[in-house]
């Protein structure tokens, strides 16, 4: 019997107008309602932190003891903290750093993960076990002591090169990215190991394709589906990891109100001022959720086998 795996209409089905690949992907992406809504949500969040400061020009360190721990009102839409500082303004300002850390750390982790995974997956000799030992080594490293060590060793050097905020940013991104690439690497390696034995890869090889061509055109695109999903989870993990670091006093200075920092500060006043934790929490939640949905939508849209 003909070996087909997915139930799908065959070519006898009514023909549809051929479209260019980019347009076709967009058409398929649009069919994923949640992903489309998530793009809108994420766009609002990103635009909010980028240009929100122009719309809501309130200073983030404007202390007003008359308005301590107030709930949302017209004066302070997101309420105030224990020093009477406006939370909306603080979230706009800190959100830039939180989102930037999330995305850049995700990019760093994914790139390292894909490179290591691809190298391990394509090598047939010693490189694969060596890289996997390295991955296991990184997985077994106790992260917090390592962080402390890295920060102790490099904080001053980086500050000297990139300035206070920049130095901390580079360090945090490097630390988060450098300690979270292992799941992606393992995923990519596993995908590569199965894909490189597939007949279509062998077919391309028999036509004279170089290893580079095989990886770029055939193996990597087919391996990307799970990687996209894993990477979208990395963004959320990075935002949360940044807040952990802030919590420990290892991240940005306490006066920079990243979302994680806001949550940390809010924890002592949860009973009287729940809004203080709810708004940054909701922002992190919405970011993570929408990125995950966008990841799902991208995976489906980029896979032509799925009938959409």
């Amino acid at each position, binding site marked *: *019997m*003909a*070996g*087909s*795996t*997915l*139930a*799908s*209409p*065959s*070519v006898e*089905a009514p*023909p549809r107008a*051929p*479209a260019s*690949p980019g347009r076709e992907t967009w058409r398929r992406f649009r069919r994923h309602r949640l992903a489309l809504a998530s793009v809108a949500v994420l766009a609002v969040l990103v635009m909010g932190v980028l240009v929100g400061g122009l719309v809501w020009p309130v200073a983030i360190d404007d202390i007003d003891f008359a308005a301590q721990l107030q709930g949302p009102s017209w004066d302070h839409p997101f309420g105030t903290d224990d020093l009477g500082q406006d939370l909306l303004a603080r979230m706009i300002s800190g959100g830039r750093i939180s989102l930037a850390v999330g995305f850049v750390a995700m990019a760093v982790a994914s790139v390292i993960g894909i490179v290591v995974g691809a190298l391990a997956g394509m090598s047939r000799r010693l490189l694969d076990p060596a890289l996997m030992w390295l991955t296991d080594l990184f997985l077994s490293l106790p992260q917090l002591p390592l962080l402390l060590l890295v920060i102790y060793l490099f904080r001053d050097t980086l500050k000297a090169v990139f300035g206070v905020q920049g130095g901390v940013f580079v360090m945090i991104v490097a630390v988060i990215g450098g300690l979270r690439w292992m799941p992606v690497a393992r995923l990519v390696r596993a995908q590569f190991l199965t894909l490189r034995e*597939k*007949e*279509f890869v*062998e*077919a*391309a*090889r*028999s*036509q*004279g*394709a*170089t290893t580079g*061509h095989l990886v770029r*055109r*055939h193996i990597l*695109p*087919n391996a990307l589906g799970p990687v996209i999903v894993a990477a979208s989870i990395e963004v959320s993990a990075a935002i949360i990891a940044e807040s952990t670091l802030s919590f420990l006093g290892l991240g940005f200075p306490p006066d920079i109100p990243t979302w994680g920092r806001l949550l940390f500060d809010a924890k002592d006043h949860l009973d009287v001022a729940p809004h203080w934790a709810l708004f940054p929490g909701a922002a992190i939640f919405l970011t993570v959720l929408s990125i995950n949905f966008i990841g799902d939508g991208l995976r489906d849209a*980029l*896979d*032509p*086998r799925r009938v959409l």
Partner: protein
Amino acid sequence: MADPVLSVRDLTASFRTEGRWREVLHGVSFDVGPRETVALVGESGSGKSVSAMAILRLLPRDSCRVGGSVRFDGRELLSASDAEMRRVRGDSVAMIFQEPMTSLNPVLTIGFQIAEALIQHRGLSRSAAEAEALRLLDKVRIPAARTRLHEYPHRFSGGMRQRVMIAMALACRPKLLIADEPTTALDVTIQAQILDLIKSLQDDEGMSVLFITHDMGVVAEIADRTVVVYRGRAVEAGPTARIFDAPAEPYTRALLAAVPRLGAMAGRSRPLRFPVVDRDTGAEGAMPETPDTVRAAERPVLEVRDLTTRFDIRSGLFGRVTGRIHAVERVSFSVAAGETLALVGESGCGKSTTGRSILRLIEPLSGSVLLDGEDVMALDPKALRVRRQRMQMIFQDPFASLDPRMSVGAAVAEPLLINRLATRREARQRAEDLLAKVGLSPETANRFPHEFSGGQRQRICIARALALKPRLIVADEAVSALDVSVKAQVVNLMLDLQADMGLAYLMISHDMAVVERMSHRVAVMYLGEIVEIGPRAAVFGDPQHPYTRKLLAAVPVPDPARRRDRHGLADDEIRSPIRAPDHVAPERHYREVSPGHVVQLWGADWAGPAARDVAA
């Protein structure tokens, strides 16, 4: 006829896809009498498997509706309660499936799995069930059943697993056995054994059998009556002999015309196209002779000498070599331009490895491969990539060999782009031309592989292989996975292309009937060695080596009148090519029977059961 065991009337089934109900079975009716074997035969997608699933109510209820009537033993099954159905399945109706590899639980022993069914359905105690399991394994002729009872499924070969599945099916002494393509995944010699086994068990146990298959040869071999299914309808039903002798419906005629018959080529020296019969009218199209394409005078396109490929089996901490698979052992042959050499043998005999070693997709251990006189083995990676343009490969599974993310046009154009032989625009144009050449419209270039049927996908793979204007095509089981009628079309296409372009084919196949139809010369491989090679007519007409004879005897003949008597095939398995690391391959001697027909001299190990088979 006595009251039928199973009586199916106007069976319909619809599936819900994207919110709409689509009917896939439009009223199928047939009976299965006591002790009778009825074959449901049709091509993939015809609805034969759906019928079987509908009879046992195994289709998912929320996405599938079944109508009509199924009476088993006088009871209506379609309206029976779920509890009743559970008793019917397994107790009085048993089913065996196509994939013996996946139907057994890998973490439980064989004996445990059979005993499980006995305890559940027949209420035996654990010890009684184990004794019964042993008896059943003996019954399905598993050698050394007592020791094998405690082994796990991975220790069993495909044929042996199918025997275990049959033993499980027999556990509850069913009245009806539904066998869904039980031999499709097996080698011919093993298939013949299993068919034999089913036949003799049927006599012993007095079961009825509903046999679902696409293979007309198997039908002729086993069925008393045949029901031909086409597009969800039973188009023709009747005694098997009548269906084969005087098919009434055009579709049946078309199907039978496309069935390759072993022995149909006696007295011909050239390959022969399949006749084309119109499915709706039954009119037979003209069948042009194939021209003589072999250029015997020229230097052969491919000369292979003493090719040897072995795989190390490593184990332990330091990866010590504990054994070697001698996949290809000192294989020599040549293929002339315009010639088809078929490499036949059963799974694991090394024929695919030979094909891949020639293209150096697998690095051979030693030997030489000359392509147009140039040694492929001596090429550096860059030169090899260039040289591969002249030898291309077509794979067994056309779906797996096309990148699912690449449009068909891009896939066909890719070889040109990889080798920088054309600009993007030119390559696109060439791709459309090539698609037209293999009988697909150029507009299909924008579609993706999953949108095509199996036969169309194989045409796309052929178009891709042709893109570089190769001299040699290695076709690895290129038509084995296709339906009979599609198979016939693809074979015809390959023959036409050979005539047009003077292609040489190295055709790797286990399908003896197609090989007989398509090839000029045949090489028979066994355990990595060529045991017999020669012109097709000589090898098929006058087989010398016991293995060749065994292979030919096992091919099912699509002619019920020539149904073989119970031939008592031995229950031996294909032997393993794994050897100890210090194994030295024995020196082989060959004898020339007639010009070009060479056979390996066989030793005492062939004097055993195999030789008896041949004598029988």
